[in-house]
């Protein structure tokens, strides 16, 4: 199949870097809020239970 000139030409999308930076900041803030929520859960959860759940994540490698 021959290539058609001018077709599938690579182009970059227009982005708003300020908007991306704000999204990154919001995402980080949400992760910190999740840690607060997770630690609250951790504190009321018996060691045997949270560590069993954690094992699956820690042993990913």
């Amino acid at each position, binding site marked *: 199949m021959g290539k058609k000139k001018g077709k599938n030409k690579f182009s970059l999308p227009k982005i708003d870097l300020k908007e991306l930076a704000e999204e990154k900041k919001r995402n980080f803030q949400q*992760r910190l809020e999740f840690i607060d929520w997770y630690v609250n859960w*951790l504190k009321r959860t*018996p*060691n*045997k239970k949270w*560590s*069993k*759940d*954690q094992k699956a994540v820690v042993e990913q*490698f």
Partner: protein
Amino acid sequence: MEFSFTKKKIILNNKVVNRLDEFVLTFTSVLDRMKINYVIVSGYVAIVFGRSRATEDIDIIAEPFGKKKFEEFWSGLEKEFDCINAPNAAQAYDDYISQNIALRFFEKGGKPIPNIEFKFPKNTLDERTLKDRVELLLDGKQLFVSPIEIQIAFKLFLGSEKDFEDARHLYKVFAEEISLAELKSYAKLLKVEEKLGLAGVKNG
């Protein structure tokens, strides 16, 4: 999470031991046999206290010792660990550990991740961390970890999002037990006072 906390000892019972804990305990058992003082720092400290994430390496700082003892230590490790950056004890000691370059050890015949990053103290903060290490008992199995106050401040100093999250996890877990004054002092020393809020310290 139930634990008992004093400045020098934390007891955590009924924790389901994972492969990472086993890996660390196997390595530290060689250090214990050789009577080498050590302290575990960085990510594993957050993980052992419940942070739910994987890690590539476990950082261990050991009290410096000479080449002869290092050769015995290497022999003790050889059965269960391979070294990533040196093929033998002499090279590991001369070219790495005695030059303040960390050695990396991984499970013999296994994957290079996770690995132990093993080093001697590189600065006065490492020395203090070693001196003030905290005994951690996991159902009677002994480990030594960094004081929580130092660990939180140092994570804020390291400064990646993952480090801030580790710092926040540790602070939230131990907020009622640790010394806020000490945490603030270490944060001041490392010039990260303005980041204490990221760890969750009120008016930090």
